[in-house]
């Protein structure tokens, strides 16, 4: 670094002013020009967040939203070189500062996360799926998962209700967010606990539905695994039509 300390400080002051609007003195600088930088920089951050979190922006009162933006810009050192990824840092910032508790908005973290995940899934780098065929044995075959997904747990069902309603239904929710392999649109599905369990065993253990049901029967000493299996088959059939599952792995000969 070849800057002299005073040159360094001038840039630092300009940056601090842009991030906070707090008074600074820079030799030769005009007040109008400085205020313009503050306006441009803050607008940029605000617009990025408004675009990423349209629902949160709408449900938060102006003063709370503006406070979040101001604090985030002033206190958080933005790490990504790509501004469209900055909303992910915003989600973490709001969670760490615990505004959900501070402002008695217990659903806030879930709502921000829910809104960000849609962008993340929409933009994430392409992932190649395992080879598959459309014909297969739904009970005993290996089911191939669409790899472009995020399965996220939520405490408040912000994916099902408006926040005023969602806050009355805390629980354990699992939201599947995935990208349609052809249209590349983002799709959402609310999964039950059993669906989630089934999905994770398919995705991570490559187990067949029969194996998963048999395991559950053993674990919970069930007399009959049939109702479970019926449920799982219905889930997989439905989500295969919706392209969360792509098909069946080719049989190893």
């Amino acid at each position, binding site marked *: 670094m070849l800057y002299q300390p005073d040159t360094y400080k001038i*840039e630092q002051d300009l*940056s601090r002013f842009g991030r906070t609007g707090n008074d600074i003195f820079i030799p030769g*600088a005009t007040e*109008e020009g400085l205020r313009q930088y503050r306006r*441009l920089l803050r607008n940029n951050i605000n617009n990025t967040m408004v675009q990423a979190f349209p629902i949160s922006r709408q449900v938060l009162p102006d003063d709370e939203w503006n406070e979040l933006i101001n604090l985030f810009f002033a206190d958080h050192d933005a*790490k990504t070189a790509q501004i469209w990824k900055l909303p992910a840092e915003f989600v973490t910032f709001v969670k760490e500062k615990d505004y959900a508790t501070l402002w008695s908005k217990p659903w806030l973290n879930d709502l921000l996360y829910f809104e960000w995940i849609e962008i993340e899934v929409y933009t*994430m780098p*392409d992932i190649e799926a395992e080879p598959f065929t459309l014909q297969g044995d739904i009970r005993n075959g290996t089911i191939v998962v669409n790899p472009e997904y995020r399965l996220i747990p939520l405490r408040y069902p912000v994916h099902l209700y408006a926040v005023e309603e969602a806050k009355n239904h805390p629980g354990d929710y699992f939201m599947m967010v995935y990208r349609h392999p052809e249209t590349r649109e983002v799709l959402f599905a609310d999964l039950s606990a059993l669906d989630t369990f089934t999905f994770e065993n398919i995705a991570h253990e490559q187990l067949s539905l029969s194996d998963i049901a048999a395991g559950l029967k053993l674990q919970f000493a069930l007399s009959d695994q049939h109702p479970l299996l019926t449920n799982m088959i219905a889930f997989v059939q439905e989500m295969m039509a919706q392209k969360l599952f792509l098909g069946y792995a080719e049989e190893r000969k």
Partner: protein
Amino acid sequence: MGFRRDIADAFLKTNEINPDFVEVAPENWINMGGYWGAQFKEVSHRFPVFLHGLSLSIGSPDELDLAFLRQVKNFIAEHDVRVYSEHLSFAKMDNAHLYDLLPIPFREDSVKHLVARIKQVQDFLEMPIAIENVSYYTPVAAQMTESEFINQIVSQSGCNLLLDVNNVYVNAFNHHYDPYEFISGMPLDRVAYIHMAGHEQVSPTLIVDTHGEAIIDPVYDLFDFTVAKLKPVPVLLERDFNFPEIRMLNHEMNQLRSIVNKYWIKDVVPA
């Protein structure tokens, strides 16, 4: 022309915009998958791609982000990019990105710093880069003129100059100098690329470089004056938002073409 999502269909589906090259910010496209990743692949397949960076922050004291620069380098290779340019400004301070272009004090020590940084980037990428003169809205503790500053950096670093003619106009207005004299004082043999854009006057004393308006006549005049002094180089129409009808964009491109054709051979056309 700059490739932006809002006007993507005019490039890829309707062919209403058919430029000789497109410019994009690498920050907007690196690691992008899905629908837009596929759109970008098609763009880079159909048009030569020029990269115009935003976040490298050549003018800040922070260490260069080499991990990011590595991604840019891979992106350059992957999309067969011919030109990578960045700004004569800083966009990062105290390890925090600011996502805008802030002015560097025009001083001896900043010249030394910038020269070293530009060389570091060129060595890393194994290609020359072009550096753009930026619009700025307040002087910051200058100890030399903007013209001296740019001349010293270009001559000492060996980089090319991306001459943004609109920025010269904006700065001349904001800081009360003569834009024609300024252009004449630039290292014109090092100009590798030209930007043309619109701007917005926000008060009687301040113009902001918005890329959201049509180019105004005095900037066309300045462009004409500039082109007459240069060897042929690519010319970009910058438009980032507030898009008009496509025919209006093409009208602007044609205006630029007709000026260029007065001075340059036919096969170099603005895009």
